[in-house]
């Protein structure tokens, strides 16, 4: 992910500007730069998760304690979150997640395709508002709009980051 055109740094700036204090994540190549920035920041607690739904429950706990959080994952992780998102809906927790897409452009692994196709419908079905970003120059504005909507409107909001924008995964056997 060498060619990320600076958007991960812009995304990091949005998280800082939105006063995000906890960032849950499952390690992900597309989010590698953003995760590294979060780990290096003394005011952000980075929480490595064993599965993505842990991050949904973590976000609820953080909010109960007065802190804003964000969840970083890839599209395959959305499937793991489905039932836990009922916690967000039932209690109307604000919830903000940034999702790197797999299985939609220059994908080498067919096992990524099903969940890629299901990502937006699944999120929508669970009451999560979905934004999608296809171009790097739109990342900052969309991320800011998502943060504003999540914490201003007490809503669950996901930003899908297109695989074409993230770039080909360099993977050799």
């Amino acid at each position, binding site marked *: 992910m060498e060619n990320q055109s600076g958007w991960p740094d812009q995304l990091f700036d949005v998280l800082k500007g939105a006063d995000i204090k906890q960032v849950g994540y499952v390690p992900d190549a597309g989010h590698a730069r953003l995760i590294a920035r979060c780990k290096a920041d003394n005011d952000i607690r980075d929480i490595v998760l064993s599965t993505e739904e842990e991050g949904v429950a973590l976000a609820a706990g953080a909010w*109960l*304690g007065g802190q804003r959080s964000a969840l970083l994952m890839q599209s395959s992780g959305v499937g793991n979150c489905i039932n836990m998102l009922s916690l967000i809906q039932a209690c109307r927790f604000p919830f903000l997640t940034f999702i790197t897409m797999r299985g939609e452009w220059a994908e080498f692994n067919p096992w990524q395709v099903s969940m890629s196709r299901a990502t937006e419908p699944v999120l929508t079905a669970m009451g999560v508002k979905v934004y999608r970003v296809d171009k790097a120059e739109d990342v900052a504005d969309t991320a800011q709009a998502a943060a504003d909507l999540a914490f201003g409107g007490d809503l669950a909001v996901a930003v899908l980051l297109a695989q074409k924008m993230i770039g080909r995964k360099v993977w050799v056997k």
Partner: protein
Amino acid sequence: MLERRKAIATLMANRGKNMFVVPGLGSTTWDMASLGEKDSDFYLWGAMGGAAMIGLGLALAKPKLTVVVITGDGEMLMGLGSLATIGVQRPANLAVIVFDNQHYGETGMQASHTDQGVDLVGVARACGITHAFDVQDEGALKTLAGELGTLKQTLFARVRIAADEPARVLPSKDGVELKLRFRKAAAAAG
């Protein structure tokens, strides 16, 4: 063997004002409600497998509070990976207590994995939560209750309880109400 309603009463007998409790979906939520519905308890009616992680997010956000997750063996088994996640973070103000009756009480008392020998204290220790205890009797339970009042490191305890089914005591199930009153109480407590 310990009876669950007596055990919850013993654990909470000297509860301080800075203790906030996340009871897991099912019997432990009814157990906490049996002591009287409180703003400082975040009763779960769903989110099975999420209790410990809600506790972690809260404990990290509010280091001056003592956060106690009290859940059942089935709920803990569904979020077993969260013990690995907590083992990495290890906030000093978080206790995870599992009331283990070795059965799924809400669905007809089917046997759980712990009935077949799965050792939750062993799992917690292997995940790096070294302050982990197996509580089998009243004396050990009182020791645990005392520890909650002076928590200095992440604690895990498995409390072996009888597989009985006391009458359900139901708290509010309006999630927005539960969230708002708990968040307000947590903010006021520090």
